[in-house]
Each structure stands twice: as structure tokens, then as C-alpha cells.
């Protein structure tokens, strides 16, 4: 009952600094890439970089990497629910103007 400190993970300073540098590099990358027109990839690249950054923060700053699976599941549930909310709503927005299927139906 008193011997519980084994369970919290104390990460070395080096990892924190490395994570910080990685986040800065990604920030510069996303700003730099924004000035190039990549067509439909524009949004894709920006969101992907943001996701990678968020993922790094989750893993290291927020210690998810060393935590129980249930916490993973909780974070994932929030994110997945948001994606589903968006997917269903956008599916309406994108297909609203479509005509009904042809007469054969």
C-alpha cells in the first residue's frame, strides 16, 4: 500500500526537451508548407501535422504512453466521437444537393 511509486513514471529531462524541439520543428514545418499550394493536400497536410503534434503531446507531456489502457480508451473515445459527429454531419452537408435516385427505385 505504501510501495506505489513504481507505478508513476518519471521521465528523463532529455525526453521533455526532445519533445519540445520536435513540436517546434513541426510548427515551423506547418507554417512553411502552408505557403505552397498542394491542391487538395493543403488541408490534409495541415491536419496531419496537427494530429502528429497532438499525438506527441498526448504521449509524452500527458504521459499516455506510460498510463493504463483505460485512459487511452477515454482519450480515444472523445476523439472518435468528435470524428463521428463531424462525419455524419458533413455527410449531410455534402450530399444535400443530390437528386433522388432514378425511377428504378
Amino acid at each position: 500500500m505504501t510501495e506505489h511509486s513504481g507505478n508513476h513514471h518519471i521521465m528523463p529531462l532529455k525526453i521533455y526537451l526532445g519533445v519540445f524541439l520536435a513540436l517546434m520543428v513541426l510548427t515551423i514545418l506547418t507554417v512553411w508548407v502552408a505557403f505552397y499550394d498542394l491542391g487538395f493536400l493543403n488541408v490534409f497536410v495541415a491536419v496531419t501535422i496537427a494530429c502528429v503534434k497532438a499525438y506527441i503531446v498526448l504521449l509524452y507531456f500527458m504521459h499516455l504512453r506510460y498510463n493504463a489502457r483505460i485512459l487511452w480508451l477515454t482519450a480515444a473515445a472523445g476523439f472518435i466521437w468528435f470524428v463521428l459527429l463531424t462525419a455524419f454531419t458533413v455527410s449531410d452537408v455534402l450530399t444535400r444537393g443530390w437528386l433522388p435516385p432514378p425511377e428504378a427505385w
Partner: protein
Amino acid sequence: MAETETSHPDHLAHHFDSVEQQRESASFGMWLFIAQEIMFFGGLFLGYIVYRIKYPMAFATGSNLLSIEWGAFNTAVLIGSSLTMALAVRAAQTGNNRLIIRWILATMLLGSVFLGVKVVEYKDKYDHQLVAGPMFEFDADYVLEREAVPAVYADDIDVHDPQFGSNVHLFYSFYFVMTGMHALHMIIGIGVMIWLLVKAYRKRFGPDYYSPVEMTGLYWHFVDIVWIFLFPMLYLMGRH
């Protein structure tokens, strides 16, 4: 009470059996809170996405009127504050009270810098009558002068079309609500840190008990993550 027979430290609430159970409960609770925060901001992001799909040109134009320099600077500041917050948690884990205080102060400072920059940005929008609401006044000449219309759309857009201005208004509605809600979360975070500082001065934290620092850290990192998404969505997309 009967429970005190066994070793029951002060910071262990009566209804928990062990410090470990209490700590795990706290962090699970915090993650559930973060899950609900995702959905809270999720509603805003959804609105933004829907309108961005409907009015890509107006949103790109509105976005280009924002200052990418300030936005990038603020991103760096906020990531830096996440680092200092993580270090504060680490200091609590290793029981270094002096460092806890120092890193929390650093985090608060960086957070305040971020908010200060936000004020500068809001002021700029105020000067150009871009603040969403009744005083919003779309100035086509300003848009042309700033060359805010993305080159690829330049031929397709009539900046003098009132509807176009309205849709830019919509962009600014979202800009202000989203960044405002984010800033509000930061202010709350800074408020919580004041409470942490008081506790830290009283030397309440140590390797056995640092949940409040850890939880505040989780909250702060989450606020950072929201900005990590807000920055490209509001400032970067449609920049070219």
C-alpha cells in the same frame, strides 16, 4: 473513524483504500473531463468545418487577414508553456518544491504572454472593424490592400459582393468564439495555477501526493492541443 487505524495519510480521503486508488481515480476523472472537453470544442470545430466547406473562399480570405507571425509566435509560446508545465509535474514527482514553484511561475508567465498577444491581435481586428457582431464592417479595400484573397481564387471572387463580406463575417464569428473560448480556458488554467502555487508554498506536494499538479498539467496540455488544431485551421489553411 475506524479507517484511521491503518496508515491513512492526510491527503488520502476517507472513502479510498489506498493512495494509489485515489491517484488513479483522479487521473481517470481528469481524462474523462478531457474527453468531454474534446466534444465541447468539437461542436465549434464542426461548425467551422461545415461553413468552411460551404464558403471556402470567404474563409480563406478571412484567414489571410490574420497575422501569421503572431499566430506562429503564440504557438511557440504555448508549446513552451506546455514544456514548463510538464517540468513542473516532473519536479513534483521528484519532490523538488522549489522547482515546482519556478516552473509553475514560468508556465503562468508564458500563458500570460499568449493572452497578451491575443489582446494585440484582437485590437488589430477591432481597428479594422473585423470584430464579429453588429460593428462588423467589411472593408473591401482593406482586403485588397492586404492581398488577402488567395491567388487561386482571385478571379472568382468579387470582394465587393455584400454576401462575400457576410461570409467573411461568419469566419470572424468563429474566429472570435473559438479563440475566445480557448483563451477563457487558459485564464481558468492560470487561475488554478495560483491555487497550486499557494499549495506549493505550503509544501503540500511530494512524490506521494502531486495529483493536483498532474491534473492541472493534463488540463494545460489539453488547452495546448486545442491551439495546435486552431492554429492551422484559423491561420494557415488557404494561405498560399
